[in-house]
């Protein structure tokens, strides 16, 4: 179907040229994405423990996974973390994007400044947040005590809820700029005429936002959601540095759980954990692509 359509639109030579240009990308995807994924699938079918004999065990790793309460806890944590942090990031991202789309003094500078958190590697920003939350000399405790909100310092990372929101906040600080920039490009693609016309019709700000901006922004929002969701599902570095899954394993994510198995030499079970994460991410991607109706307009 698609092939016929392509042949109708382009000449053979054009198609050849296009393929040649795509070849490096295809090779890259094969070598670094497809082969490792298939490899992980295969490994997950084995009892592949470095200190035990390697044995093919079909789906036994997955059977163990289904009854592994720690896995389900970490799975649940990851999903809740994604929902809360991505919602927060989208909300903040849209607000910032709308703001930066206005005529502001130093708009160029502001747009650059907003990007700074995104430019800092996660491991480093996690260290910065670690210092902010520090019980003895952290900024957070300094502020609440100076402002008289609390007399005693708070052990931010010491309770399940506290550690969870500490992570969400750090993640939002780091990735909201990414959402902002993507949405900003989307906002700029909306022709001003439409807004002007609506103004003539006396549509107020919220009406224009819901009836014009939001529908036209939808494809870009879906892209931002897609990136953030997948990125959030595989959360590892922030947790590794900030809480290391603590207190008592309450903030451990699927990636962190899988990593621990690779470290201890159980590659089979670790792979099964990775595959489970892949399946969830893949299913969500398909869902988003369907919602975003990508590809329909192109052909």
């Amino acid at each position, binding site marked *: 179907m698609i092939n016929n359509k392509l042949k109708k639109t382009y000449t053979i030579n054009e198609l050849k040229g296009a393929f040649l240009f795509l070849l490096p990308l295809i090779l890259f995807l094969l070598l670094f994405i497809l082969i490792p994924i298939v490899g992980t699938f295969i490994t997950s079918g084995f009892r592949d423990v470095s*200190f035990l004999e390697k044995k093919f065990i079909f789906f036994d790793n997955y059977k163990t996974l289904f009854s592994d309460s720690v896995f389900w806890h970490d799975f649940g944590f990851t999903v809740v973390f994604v929902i809360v942090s991505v919602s927060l990031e989208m909300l903040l991202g849209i607000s910032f994007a709308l703001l930066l789309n206005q005529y502001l003094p130093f708009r160029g500078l502001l747009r650059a400044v907003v990007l700074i958190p995104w430019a800092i590697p996660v491991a480093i920003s996690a260290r910065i947040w670690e210092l902010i939350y520090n019980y*003895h000399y952290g900024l957070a405790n300094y502020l609440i005590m100076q402002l008289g909100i609390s007399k005693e310092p708070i052990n931010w*990372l010491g309770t399940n809820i506290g550690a969870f929101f500490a992570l969400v906040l750090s993640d939002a600080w780091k990735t909201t700029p990414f959402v902002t920039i993507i949405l900003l490009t989307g906002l700029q693609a909306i022709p001003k005429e439409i807004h002007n016309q609506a103004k003539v019709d006396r549509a107020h700000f919220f009406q224009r936002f819901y009836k014009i901006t939001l529908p036209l922004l939808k494809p870009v929002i879906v892209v931002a959601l897609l990136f953030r969701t997948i990125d959030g599902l595989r959360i590892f570095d922030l947790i590794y540095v900030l809480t290391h899954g603590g207190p008592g*394993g309450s903030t451990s994510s699927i990636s962190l759980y899988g990593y621990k198995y690779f470290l201890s030499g159980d590659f089979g079970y670790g792979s099964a954990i990775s595959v489970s994460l892949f399946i969830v991410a893949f299913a969500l991607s398909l869902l988003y692509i369907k919602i975003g109706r990508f590809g329909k307009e192109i052909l």
Partner: protein
Amino acid sequence: MVNKNIVLLIVCITVGFVGCEKKETNVITFSVGGAPNEIVVWEKLISEFEVQTGIKVNILRQPTDTDQRRQGLVIALKAKKSNPDVFLMDVAWLGQFAASDWLEPLDTYVKEKDIELDSFFTKVINLADKYKGNLIALPVYIDAGLLYYRKDLLNKHGIKNPPRTWKELLNYSIKIQKSERENAPNFYGFVWQGAQYEGLICNFIEFAGSNGGGILIKDGKVLINSPENRESLEFMKDLITKYQISPPNTFTEMKEEEVRMFFQQGNALFERNWPYAWKLHQSEDSPVKNKIGISSLPHFNSGKSVSTLGGWHIGISKYSDAKLQAMEFIGFVTSARIQKKLTLELGWNPARKDIYLDKDILQKLPYFRELRDVFENAYPRPNLPFYTQISEVIQKYINSVLAGTVEISKGLKETDIKLQKVVETYDK
């Protein structure tokens, strides 16, 4: 037109990617991580070794973080790479590496090279470096938990000796913390490692071991849910919540370095830490310089003091293509002369017993006399291939108990069930 030069370039790049396998055998690759000053010392030692033997040593530099150093080695060994030939390992992974058949047995080499195993701490060699009767590594330096105390503050309150029992530690802490708080509101009695990581296990073994408890796994049976362990765990929790002589962030942020800095800033009376902290506490700009002492850790009334054995060991990869040269290097590193050098330059604790009585060493590091006894009685963690899985489970539950999210008897019961499962899965 395809240019000849482009073809050449592509060939070069391909060969560059694939052709890293070395061919010469008079070259060994040594994988080592650590603080920058440690790497500098290694580089010096290596150039001396190269001159002495004519064997070239390439350093494969690793991060400081223990988990990341391990990750780098696991990947290379799992892929059966001939590099690195020789590397340092934390005592806690020796079981896994040996059981995975990644380590070359050293027995014959050691005999040929006339390395006297008797000059090392016997317990360390037997409990950590031997696997199924074979010698699979040699200790480069060892560690054990110690109690650091503020001499000046104890004297000020008329206390002559450091505490022998936990009860004494508790009483001294409560008393001195109360009076010190008048000037320093941030002062605490006792700091130790309670964050969710390997160090928590080491601390737990010391508390529980000094009460006759501990982690016992033998013949597929787990013994952790014992009254001794329950009492120890309760004491650990009480230090934070009931007596409040340990800071509330003990179970979230307190790892070696956090504890070390807290004590070094003068904010604590007692500290549990590894021997490395001594040199830093005594450095020029340290507020506690010359105000501290060390002793073995306290114990419960009925038990005796226990220190968890730590430290790093050197071994040879089974896949090395230069095992003889690698052994030459191990012989060099573990020799008395180099061990003494490492001690003098880095303050490391050698596994060779005689160095603790060496005149030069005692002159520079007078506390070494006391250390010898501590090391002689250091207590290893279970030397099992699946120790990591065991550690993960225990870390999680002890940390939950300290955080107050899981109740003590329930925590121990669940640890027991989970450990039993780990043993069933991996003990084959």
